[in-house]
C-alpha cells in the first residue's frame, strides 16, 4: 500500500469503521511507515482536542412551552401555508415539465425544414432549368429547390 492510499484510510480506521481487510493492510503499512504512523498520532490528538474544546450550553428550560406554542401555530395555519414547501416542490416540477415540453417543441420546429414559400410555378421553372442536361443536376433537384431564396 502506498502512503497516499493509507492516508485516505486513516479516518475510518480511527473511527473503528474500517472493514477487516482494509484494517489489516493499513496496519501492515503503518508497521513499516513512520510518516503515516505519525500522521495517525496527529489525527488522533486532534480528534481528542475537539472533545475537550466542545462545551455546548444546556438545553434551555423554557423551550418546551415554546414548542407547544409553535405547534399550535402550525396547526392553525391554513392548508396551503402548512403544505407550502410541498406545493412549491410540485410547482417547480410542473414548471420544469412544461419548460421541457415547450423547449422540445421549439427545437423540433427549428430543426425541421421550413415549408418553401416559393410559388409552384417558379419552382417548376427552376426544376426544369436544373433538369437541363448541361447542368447534370437532375438527381439533386429536390435539395436544390430547398435552397431557392424565399
Amino acid at each position: 500500500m502506498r502512503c497516499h492510499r493509507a492516508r485516505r484510510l486513516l479516518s475510518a480506521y480511527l473511527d473503528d469503521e474500517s472493514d477487516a481487510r482494509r484494517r489489516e493492510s493499513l496496519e501492515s503499512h503503518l508497521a513499516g511507515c513512520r510518516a503515516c504512523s505519525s500522521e495517525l498520532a496527529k489525527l488522533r490528538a486532534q480528534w481528542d482536542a475537539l472533545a475537550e474544546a466542545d462545551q455546548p450550553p444546556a438545553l434551555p428550560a423554557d423551550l418546551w412551552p415554546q414548542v407547544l406554542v409553535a405547534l399550535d401555530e402550525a396547526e392553525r395555519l391554513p392548508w396551503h401555508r402548512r403544505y407550502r414547501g410541498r406545493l412549491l416542490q410540485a410547482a417547480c416540477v410542473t414548471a420544469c415539465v412544461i419548460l421541457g415540453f415547450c423547449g422540445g417543441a421549439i427545437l423540433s420546429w427549428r430543426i425541421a425544414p421550413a415549408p418553401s414559400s416559393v410559388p409552384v410555378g417558379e419552382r417548376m421553372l427552376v426544376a426544369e432549368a436544373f433538369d437541363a442536361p448541361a447542368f447534370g443536376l437532375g438527381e439533386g433537384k429536390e435539395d436544390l429547390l430547398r435552397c431557392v431564396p424565399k
Partner: protein
Amino acid sequence: MRPRDDSKLMQDLAAGDRQALQELYERHAERVFRTAFRFLHDKDEARDITQSVFVTIMQSAGRYRPEARLTTWIYRIVVNRCLDHRAGADRRMRTVLTDREIEQIPASEADRPDRIAQRAEQRAQLLAAIRELPKRQRLALILRRFEEQSYDEIAVALGCSRKSLESLLVRAREALARHFSK
C-alpha cells in the same frame, strides 16, 4: 407503568397524542439542541431549530417507519433544518469567539492565568476551524465526533452513501489538520 419505547411513542404521536411528543422531547431535545448549536454556534438559532424539529416530528409522525432508529430519523430532520438554514444567519456566524465567550470558558482552579488564557485560545481556534468547514463536512464531523453516531447512521442522516460520508470525514479531518499546522 413501563415507559413507552420510541416506536410506540411515534405510533401514539401519529394518533395525535401530545403527551407522546413531550416524552420524545424529554428524551431527544438535548441532542437536537446540542447538534444545532454545534452547527450554528448561536443559542437563539439552535432554539429555533429545536422548536421547528419537534413541530416536524409531530406533523410527520405518521410517515416514520420503525425500520430506522428514531434518533437517526430525528438527526435527518435536524440535518435538513441546518442545511436549509438561511444564508443570512450563516453569514452572521463568526469565525472567532468574542472576549465574553472566551471568559465564560470554565477552567480548573489549579490552572494558572496564563494556562487558562492559552487553553481558551486553543479552544477558540478549534471552534473557528470547525465553523469554517463546509456545511456537510461540519455536520458529518459533529455527528461522528460529538454525537458518536455510526457511519451508516450518519450516511442516512445526511442522505448520502457510506463512501461519500467517508470522503466527507477525510476532507474534514484534512481541513482541521491544515488549520492546526498554520
